[in-house]
């Protein structure tokens, strides 16, 4: 029963990883942009939540009402003001987001020092539900997992059932033709980034309730998100959720064998998938 417990924890953590990945995968899908600063933005939003909570005396969940719209605005502005100008070739978006990543990390360091922070959610942090005599699961991870699945389902609906989603898919297929059909691709790209960062903001607040964070925590989160995408297979949101869950399980099991192994176990699973099945487990588009 101990193992069931561990695997369950891994699944719940994996939902959070899938949330990191969903934002990353969304903008890659729409504009072929890999945002290296993705993890640093997650951390930046966690800091933002920290100060919003202190200023308004609210809990982390309530702070989302401020952080999510702010993140979407930042995303829209970032895309129109900077990232749109880098698209077209392969190198510039990559190198510009690398620069952005280093800038965000060091700005956070200047303002908030190397001290670790954490968002406190109160009693809910220690509440748990007894599923079976030997299996009790924290309420907080359960809520986070449920929200992550709901957000991924929501993204799926936006993508395949709405006008905005149609615009996303059209732009992804062929930006030039999409423009000829009257879509303003620069606006569509900015909307995609806004949506991505809104998701990222939720992920940032969630992870910051679970673990301590510092200005240099971002790259690790980016790697987890990236691994979830590749394990699950490019282009499929449900695949990404599965990839995140597998990664979470691998880390939980690895950590059980040796305290130093959780990340290593995750990386090994990632590399193994890459060797055995490079298109990922549930691919939608060929890699």
């Amino acid at each position, binding site marked *: 029963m101990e193992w069931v417990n561990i695997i369950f924890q891994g699944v719940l953590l994996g939902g959070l990883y899938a949330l990191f990945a969903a934002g990353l995968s969304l903008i890659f899908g729409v504009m072929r942009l890999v945002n290296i600063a993705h993890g640093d933005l997650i951390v930046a939003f966690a800091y933002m939540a920290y100060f919003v909570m202190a200023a308004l005396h609210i809990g982390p969940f309530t702070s989302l009402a401020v952080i999510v719209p702010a993140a979407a605005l930042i995303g829209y502005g970032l895309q129109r003001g900077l990232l749109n100008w880098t698209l077209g070739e392969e190198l510039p978006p990559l*190198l510009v987001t690398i620069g952005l990543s280093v800038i965000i990390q060091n700005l956070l360091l200047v303002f908030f020092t190397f001290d670790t922070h954490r968002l406190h959610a109160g009693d809910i942090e220690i509440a748990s539900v007894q599923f079976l005599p030997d299996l009790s699961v924290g309420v907080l991870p359960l809520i986070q997992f449920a929200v992550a699945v709901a957000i991924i389902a929501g993204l799926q609906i936006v993508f395949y059932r709405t006008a905005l989603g149609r615009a996303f898919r059209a732009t992804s297929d062929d930006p030039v033709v999409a423009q000829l059909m009257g879509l303003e691709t620069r606006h569509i790209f900015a909307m995609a980034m806004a949506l991505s960062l809104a998701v990222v903001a939720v992920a940032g607040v969630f992870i910051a309730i679970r673990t301590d964070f510092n200005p240099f925590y971002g790259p690790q989160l980016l790697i987890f998100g990236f691994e979830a995408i590749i394990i699950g297979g490019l282009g499929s949101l449900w695949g990404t959720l599965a990839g995140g869950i597998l990664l979470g399980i691998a880390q939980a099991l690895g950590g059980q064998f040796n305290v130093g192994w959780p990340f290593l176990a995750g990386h090994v699973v990632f590399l193994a998938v890459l060797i055995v099945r490079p298109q990922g487990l549930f691919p939608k588009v060929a890699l």
Partner: protein
Amino acid sequence: MIAAKVQDAFSFRVSHIDRSSRFGLVFWALLLILLAAAPFWGDRQTMRLLGEIYSYIALASLWNLLAGYAGLVSIGQQVFVGLGGYVLYVGALAGGLPPLLCVPLGGLLCGVLAVPVVLVLFRLRGAYFTIGTWVLAEVFVQVFQQVKAVGGGSGISLPAVVVKSIAQSRDGREFLIYWLFLALVVAVIGLIVTILRTRYGLALTAIRDNEMAAKSNGIDVNRTRLIVFVAAAFANGMAGALIFLQKLSITPFSAFSINDWTMNVIFITVIGGIGRVEGPILGAVIFFVLREFLADYGSAYLIVLGVIAIVVMLKARRGLWGYVADRYGWQLFPLARRLERTRIVPDAAAAAATIEAH
């Protein structure tokens, strides 16, 4: 009439050198003499700084070869820097080998390791290759933290006996390491210039400019990339061994530091000029000037560098040297290919008929 035409026949010859590169060669030669003599005019601190600059020029030149020419943007090159360093420590401590012998040994191991790495990572395209290299580097950090034989997370130091085996006096050691750094950077740049002048260089330049067009002209892009990646890993390993020989201690975090061995290197290359041999040299000078001037403001120089790199990427994608080179046609290394018409003396006509492939 026909006979006269044969008399006036021209042949073509590919020439690399022009006026600016002739000036460049003289400039580099004078600079090299001046720098080789640094132990006679510079103090210990100057030499250490210069050594560090050389190591960064070498690393940036190699990264430039990968990203600027072969289109392989790796943010995992710290794997080879760190591994080269560890080979030196393990070879000298456990193997009892002379440290200087361990330097090429480190390069060799990295070159060999690069082959399976390439086979796995080449399955990822573009930006996904980039993050894949990074995950691999993370694996190394995690693994070396667990290996008790190399001190785990706290790392190992080079004992005095090993250090003294390089040279007895402190000055002797510092001079030797300085010259080795200089030799490394000269060898790396020399090798890159040599490669670029061969047909492989032409293939690389073609890949840089347009991968699709390169492929359609019969270039085996993957094979060229594999060769370049392995060669860069070899040189990165040697650089790493030298860097950690000077540092006297090594930990998984210092060895496989993405900020030290990759991010800084990217800034240097992007600002100086990606896809130009001169770029990393100019970039390294700018990097170290900024770092020395902003030394009192902590990590502020990284923020400034990030901003400059972004502006350069937006306004001058080929970097500062690329901007100059495009505008004035300058080159400080004899790399460009120009067709020159040469008159054929009838006897030599047969010999000249075979136009050089490059």
